[in-house]
């Protein structure tokens, strides 16, 4: 119990003094996870919506696969991305291993199925509601997807935030493909793993609380920007 209290104090101290290392790894955490979120959303939101309105032969199988991939183990993703990006792997010439780009790639793979799956679930219901209207207006497929995405934006926001949550708290994959290099690829989660390894639980917990605070802050910021959950409108 004392250690948790000491951790809270450490977090407070780190934030108040704006510890330069902390600022750096926090910004890198944000940079990696937000980039991954933007890319994954750009893939997953249209994909999930498309799956909701389109009927095709392997639809069930595709959706089942997508749902199963939500539980993709990050360590395995990390290992596969590592082998692909390694100098001896097929994309080795790009020299991407142990860079933030590699970490973004791994996180995109991890969170895309999650966002697509939640999107699909939400869009299916919305589509049931809009189906007759959109068909009778003789809309094109593109227009239908766009309408659904626009009118379902609050649920989609939830999907995106779930994806962000998974990305920012993830450690297994980025440890392998990023390498936890000081001043280059160290982020909050890998720094926590490192400090735990050194037995410095106070600093590890302090960083942990910073991570939690950051996740809260990003959620609030996105809600504020998109004007959801406000009085009088929901």
């Amino acid at each position, binding site marked *: 119990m004392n250690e948790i209290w000491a951790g809270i104090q450490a977090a407070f101290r780190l934030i108040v003094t704006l510890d330069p290392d902390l600022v750096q790894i926090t910004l890198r955490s944000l940079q990696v996870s937000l980039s991954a979120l933007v890319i994954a959303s750009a893939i997953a939101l249209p994909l999930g919506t498309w799956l909701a309105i389109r009927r095709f032969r392997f639809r069930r199988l595709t959706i089942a696969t997508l749902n199963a991939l939500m539980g993709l183990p990050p360590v395995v993703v990390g290992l596969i991305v590592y082998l692909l990006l390694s100098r*001896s792997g097929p994309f080795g010439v790009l020299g991407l*291993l142990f860079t933030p780009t590699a970490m973004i790639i791994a996180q995109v793979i991890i969170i895309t199925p999650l966002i697509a799956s939640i999107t699909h679930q939400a869009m299916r219901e919305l589509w049931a509601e809009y189906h007759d209207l959109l068909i009778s207006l003789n809309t094109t497929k593109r227009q239908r997807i766009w309408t659904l995405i626009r009118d379902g934006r609050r649920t989609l926001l939830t999907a995106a935030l779930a994806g962000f949550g998974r990305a920012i708290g993830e450690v297994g994959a980025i440890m392998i493909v990023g390498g936890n290099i000081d001043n280059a690829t160290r982020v909050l989660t890998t720094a926590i793993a490192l400090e735990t*390894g050194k*037995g410095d639980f106070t600093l590890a917990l302090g960083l942990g609380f910073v991570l939690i605070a950051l996740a809260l802050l990003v959620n609030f910021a996105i809600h504020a920007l998109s004007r959801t959950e406000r009085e009088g409108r929901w």
Partner: protein
Amino acid sequence: MIRILTAILILIGVQVRAETLRLAVTTSFHNSGLSDVLLPAIQRDTGIEVQLLVVGTGQAIRLGEAGDVDAVLVHSRKAEEAFVEGGFGTHRREIMYNDFVFVGPSLDPADIANAGDAVTALKRIAQTKAPFVSRGDDSGTHKKELSLWAAAELAPEQSGRWYNAVGAGMGASLNTASGLEAYIMADRASWLNFGNKQDLELLFSGDPALFNQYAFIPVNSARHAHVKSDAVMRLETWLTSPVARELINGYKIAGEPLFTFNATP
């Protein structure tokens, strides 16, 4: 368009600013805190920014074989020699050594504090079936521990539940040992720097069999053309220089020197 071009130029500018070099090192080297002393000095003297990949010796060797790092600094002689013989590394250069210690609960149920040598200590632990934590991750420390068990003619993996191979780094294994009040073999540096000692104490050390030699191996640029052999060579020269000797021999935790520089110029 101009904005995009500027962004690209800034990115490129950032990349060429510092000469970087990737070095795979073992967790025990990094946990000792010596790297925090050496890296800034290296950057100051040679202009090279060394990026450390902190992994076990097994993984460090793999990274070197794949060409994902420019050099490795590890401590497992057999693996190192195989690495060089396989053509993955150019040569093996000894830099410094530290030593391993046996750590355990302060009550010392197996009485290893009075064991004459490391092998006797392990035999006593096996006899009393006192809990023992092993790294179990194919690291240099793990390999060393296995070679000592072999010297004691014991096969603890098969002999029951007192032997816990946790498959983790030095710090994580020490955490497990302090939770289980178990015996563990650790390198002295990691032990002194470890923050969660609880009831554990250093019980046995000093047997020459426990000495731990670190060696530097540049990755072979004939096999991986992108390796920065020029920077690696400058780093090797620095690591074997009198400046490095001062820093390595002078590095102390709680008044105890940890490493002994033994590179031949």
